[in-house]
């Protein structure tokens, strides 16, 4: 267990030797599992309930979503490269990869906005049926998560450029990375359960 010697190393010492921020982030992600779990379950329960209206099978444009899923997946790669750059204290590349990640994320959100509009035009609105309400809520929540991620990424870029990072820069990037990957992982699940598995 933590002994006195440990304290002699100065700042940022913790009983586990782990960073407070990272621990907090993982706890938060554990908690998010139950949030998305609830939304996904609601969707699973209600996906077949659309009365005579349009259901998932008729509605989804799998090729389009596949492309956007792919985009999001690749943003995880660019994110991880940003984290690696940050660990090497390479600000230039960090910023480059962060911006790329942000762009890929925006692309994904853009595709989602497009998708939602298309669905709406086909007569499937938020209030149309149980299926549509739970679909829009689930994917909308995910979209909001991605958007928040994009904002964090861009804010990070701004802060790094101005050298205003409070605390450990690499860690700050890593934290955003954890969040970002988690959002991606949620989409991996949503993509399969919602879009690919036939209702």
């Amino acid at each position: 267990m933590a002994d006195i010697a440990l304290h002699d190393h100065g700042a940022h010492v913790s009983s586990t030797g782990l960073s407070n921020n990272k621990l907090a982030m993982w706890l938060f992600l554990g908690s998010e599992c139950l949030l998305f779990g609830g939304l996904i379950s609601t969707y699973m329960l209600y996906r077949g309930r659309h009365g005579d209206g349009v259901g998932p099978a008729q509605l989804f444009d799998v090729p389009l979503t596949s492309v956007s899923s792919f985009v999001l997946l690749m943003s995880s790669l660019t994110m991880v490269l940003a984290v690696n750059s940050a660990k090497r204290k390479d600000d230039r590349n960090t910023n480059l990869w962060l911006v790329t990640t942000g762009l890929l994320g925006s692309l994904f959100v853009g595709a989602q906005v497009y998708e939602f509009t298309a669905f709406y035009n086909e007569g499937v609105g938020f209030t149309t049926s149980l299926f549509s309400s739970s679909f829009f809520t689930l994917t909308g929540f995910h979209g909001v998560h991605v958007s928040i991620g994009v904002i964090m990424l861009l804010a990070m870029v701004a802060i790094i450029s101005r050298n205003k990072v409070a605390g450990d820069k690499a860690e700050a990037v890593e934290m955003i990375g954890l969040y970002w990957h988690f959002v991606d992982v949620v989409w991996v699940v949503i993509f399969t359960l919602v879009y690919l598995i036939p209702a």
Partner: protein
Amino acid sequence: MAIIERPSVIPAAVGGAGATALATPSSSLGVFRRPVAATGWRSWVFTVDHKKIGIMYGVVSLFFFIVGGCEALLIRLQLAAPDNKVLGAGLYNEMFTMHATTMVFLFVMPMAAAFANYFLPLQVGARDVAFPRLNALSFWMFLFGGIFLNTSWFLGGAADGGWFMYSPNSSRLFSPSHGIDFWVLGLQIIGIASLVSSINLIVTVLNMRAPGMKLMNMPVFTWMVLVVQFLLLFALPVITVALFLLSFQRNFGAAFFDVDKGADPLLWQHLFWIFGHPEVYIIILPSFGIISEVLPTFARKPLFGYKFVVFSGAAIGFVGWGVWAHHMFASGLGPVSVAVFSVATMLIAIPTGVKICNWTLTLWGGKLWFTTAMMFAIGVIVLFTIGGLSGVTHAVAPADTQQTDTYHIVGHFHYVIVGGAVMGLFAGFYFWWPKVFGKLLNERLGKWNFWLMFFGVNLTFGPMHILGMQGQPRRMVVWPEKLTGEGFFNLHFWNQVATWGSFMIALGVLVFLINIIHTAKKAAPAPLDPWDARTLEWMTSSPPKAHNFDAIPTVHALDEFFHRKYEEVDTEHGARLVKVKSAEEVLAAEEARADAHIHLPSPSYWPIVLAFGLPIIAYGVIYNLLLSVVGAAIVLLGIFGWVLEPSVADDSDYDPPAGGSETKELSPVG
């Protein structure tokens, strides 16, 4: 020795030696000067000190306890006689909904947070929580959420769907007032507050323990609070989902609980109780923790089977996730699910039984000192056992189909909650009051407080077991004359007893309030270690200094403080425990090796600003989305200021360091 405390008087004002160092005070957003007041209201409103935040949590929740209690008294008055007319049907429904919501979310949970905030860092030997500003944020969100929720009373009526707000009765169609909107959004805000604070406290416990404090050296209170934070962490998102679904339905026309469109009302029940059952352990475990501190102290003997108590606490935390559907035995789950959940529910009596047995065995062979705190703690054992055992009778699913939604259930949960959780919190008040305020609560008034509450609880909630089995359902504004019966178990008599009992509890609480005032006005300062206590929080001055410990203690054992005071000494009768050092001596030894420089996180405007934005967003959702935009802007401003503000203000704002770079920060971000 230059211990840099939290902003004290600004050196410039004092003049003298270090005054010149005050060059450019750090500012927030480059405009405002950072708050640095150490006295006056500013020192509370902008504080990030876990102790001040703890006290504020305590004051606010005590206030809400009285609000919720007065609601309960109105309920009891209405039920004192058949076909009574104190409250109308609509008002009655609002009353019990808000009574439960207030008591659960605005009293017991935040009061536990008050204790946790104040004592967790002290018990693990830390100087503050891991994220002090987030801590302040949690408090303000709770306060604003609570106020927001209660403004519904004046804005067209409070929520009237019962505290578990079953759908579809909670739809706009069936409850057209804004009450339920307030309820949903208010709980959402309070929920975020708890979620944030749960992460904060978990990190604090895991990461900020004093050297030598292994997990298995942690005081049981710390352990139980840790389990509670995990329960919160994982249970809150579930209710968050449920609340989102409901507010999307009510405010934006989503179909989730619209049966005409094929919705299944049981979805809400599952989501609510997946949260709701862990919630009841969230309510009880802090109190279990408190009495696990109180009993050993006054039995002068370590907690019997510390490890068993800790593991059973964790076990309760886990098993508590697999039993939620015992609230739905009559909902039509089908026999398979009912049987499974019935058995799972019984399982939970085992770890709880372990605790009861170990507390009893802690008393066994001890040297019992019946202070008020001790009496409350023993009261918890007695009353919780009664409530727990009636819980087991509900777990028997066929029997529960007779009991559910009757006063039998109301009896069960008030025994475990009022007799278990609330009495435990009172034990905590009496036990830790001298620590927090430096004065002992009056013991004579304390005894009155205890006996009034103890008998009051039995008189109020004991008869409810009878009433329920005699067929009086809950949530009924009136019970009819014609179903009263005339035997020993007639409804009229026992309802009256319950009402008298509730006033007896109120009297007890009143004595407590009087005791607070009396103590504040009269009492002399308490001795340093009035109870001959055992754990770290007593190894510092009362009230503790801003930085908690002059030197972070090194921990060698469970009950560290006790072991520093007592040692085994050989006598002619064999080994004997003898007090070798007084508390003052222990403390002096610690002070002698005080840390040179302590940087504490500095006060901040942003937590309260950010929190203030949330109810505005919520009002906007109800009345006009434009208002939400304003609220969101405030929140964004808060986040922006927050992120750009270092958690520790520049030295120049305070007493400048005497020299050298050796400083200890608590937290780089947060």
